[in-house]
């Protein structure tokens, strides 16, 4: 799959490129609106990460152009402008998702997974890890065919870890994913622990081995090999 990163900050651009390469994309990069236009004019991309505040114009211009020619392309807007109007405008113009800077890479990965699956109409939106089956669209989790009853928060934690499998997920990224960035971090981090405790208990009651590994002082990691159905 082909991806385009349009971001004027070179370090961030580089970082995004690396992340996408890890996800097996072939990646092109643009640092200005003009470069972006040129690249989009020449090629069709499956995914475009688009910064709005570009030095030579508003990224929304590029979004319009992409949506005009390639309806299939998934566009995720990245912006430091936490402005709702921008978000609404972007979504109206056909962007598939919106991330406010600074975001966790894990969040971006989860969002990309979600939008790509939605875009390419993968109807069986389920991920199987060992015997653990997780539905990405509905709150359904089962282990070895036996359903596990999770709360919404526990489901969100597990889905996030599954979408970011084999990656360390920091507690702060997890808190942000569940409660949004409005929540007071120092206050919310403690709650991650209690939710995680409950989740682990439910998983082990269902007979699952220790899937979630604690990375001491940092966060959690779900180590597994995905087998998609």
């Amino acid at each position: 799959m082909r991806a385009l990163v349009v971001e004027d900050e070179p370090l961030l651009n580089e970082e995004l490129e690396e992340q996408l390469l890890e996800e097996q994309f072939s990646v092109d990069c643009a640092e200005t609106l003009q470069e972006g236009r040129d690249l989009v004019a020449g090629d069709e991309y499956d995914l475009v990460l688009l910064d709005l505040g570009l030095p030579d114009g508003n990224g929304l211009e590029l979004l319009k152009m992409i949506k005009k020619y390639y309806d299939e392309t998934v566009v995720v807007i990245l912006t430091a402008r936490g402005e709702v109007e921008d978000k609404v405008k972007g979504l109206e113009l056909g962007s598939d998702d919106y991330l406010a800077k600074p975001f966790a890479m894990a969040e971006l990965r989860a969002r990309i997974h979600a939008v790509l699956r939605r875009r390419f109409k993968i109807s069986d939106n389920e991920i199987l890890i060992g015997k653990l089956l997780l539905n990405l669209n509905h709150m359904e989790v089962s282990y070895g065919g036996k359903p596990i009853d999770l709360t919404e928060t526990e489901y969100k934690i597990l889905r996030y870890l599954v979408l970011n499998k084999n990656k360390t997920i920091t507690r702060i990224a997890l808190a942000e994913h569940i409660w949004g960035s409005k929540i007071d971090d120092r206050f919310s981090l403690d709650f991650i622990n209690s939710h995680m405790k409950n989740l682990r208990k439910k998983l082990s009651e269902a007979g699952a081995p220790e899937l979630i590994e604690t990375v001491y002082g940092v966060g959690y990691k779900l180590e597994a090999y995905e087998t998609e159905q």
Partner: protein
Amino acid sequence: MKLNNKILLSNLVLSVVIFVLTSIGMYYLVNDTVYDELDNHLLQHKIDIINQVQGDPASLKEIRKLGGLGSYEWVEINPYDGTVEPNTNSFATIDTVRSPDEASSESYRRLATTISVNDQYYNLNIYEEVAAWQNISMTILLSVLAGLLIWILLLYLLNQMVFDRILTPFYDTVDTLETISDPTDFDERFPDSSTDEIDVLNRALNTMMNEIRSSFEDQKKFIQNASHELLTPLSIIRQKAEKILSRSDQLDRQTLRSANEIQETAVRLSRLSNALLLISRVENKQYELDEQVDIAGVTEKVLEELNDFITLKNISLEKEFSEELSVQGNQELIHSAIYNIVQNAVKFSPEGASITITLNGGAENHEFKVIDEGPGIPEALNGSLFDRFKKGNGRSNELGKNNGTGLGLSLVKSICKLHGFGYRAENKEGAGAEITLRF
């Protein structure tokens, strides 16, 4: 006291003082003149009598017998008894009766002196009635004073009108100043005036207002730009730290922990930056306030978002929504304000406590109240709770951790100001804090 009243009053007081002094002065002056005149008159009589007696000594008897010189004067001539030095004139004002059949005594001016007729001395007393003279002098005095008094009153009324006219531009300026609540909101100009001082004042005010306005705007813009510009580099820091963390199996604990702290700090800094950005956007009025916002609905949504924390802290929630309340404003901002208030209440509530949220009020005052059972508002913060970067140290120590950006309630304040809502925080009796919004 108003300036023009003050000037008028001091004018009046001064006029009255001058009036009183003038009255007293005039009284003595007139009296003096009257007595001088009387005395001259009496002396003239004496000269007349001496002339008469010297020309015709026999007429002395005649004069003694007649006694009177006119209707207001009379003469007494008695043999010399030594009470008066010969050849001296002594004047006195006495109250006496002219003849025993007069009912009341009157004031007379008396000249007591001596005359010699044929080498024999006689006491000569000449009396002249003062009343007639005094009547004239009093009439003059009173009419002059009445004129003065009328002048003072007229001056007062005229001054009032004139001052009002002259000071009108000054009062306009003062009234305008009074209505300014926020210098950035004020875009009127103080007008030019034909009075030099007021013109100087207005020009100085115009200059100052412009300065204040532009520095306020600069400051707000600066905060907005700075917050915005910070987000991209913070993004990079966060992602680089995350990258280190993702190789957790190759690194030792110390490195991991440091990287984690870098990341958490970057996140906190970006939250701070975002909060500042939001506040300055609210203060810069970059939000439309044209939505109808259902307060109860927003509150329910906030409670749902915070439900995890409420459940895990075992907090019992008491809701009293006695009415449907819809206010005009910005949904996102009102949500944000209520979110911050409720989040604070949840944050400061001890395990198992209860939080009461009420929405009620009469026809005029719709109030939204959040009452918690936490430690309450620390004394030191009273009055400045809604200011930026004010944190309850006592509170945070009690909870053993730093809490938040310190911008939550300041955001609530700017959102309320933008919408024209009232906001208030107070301690409940016993324990806990109560935050009230008034729509």
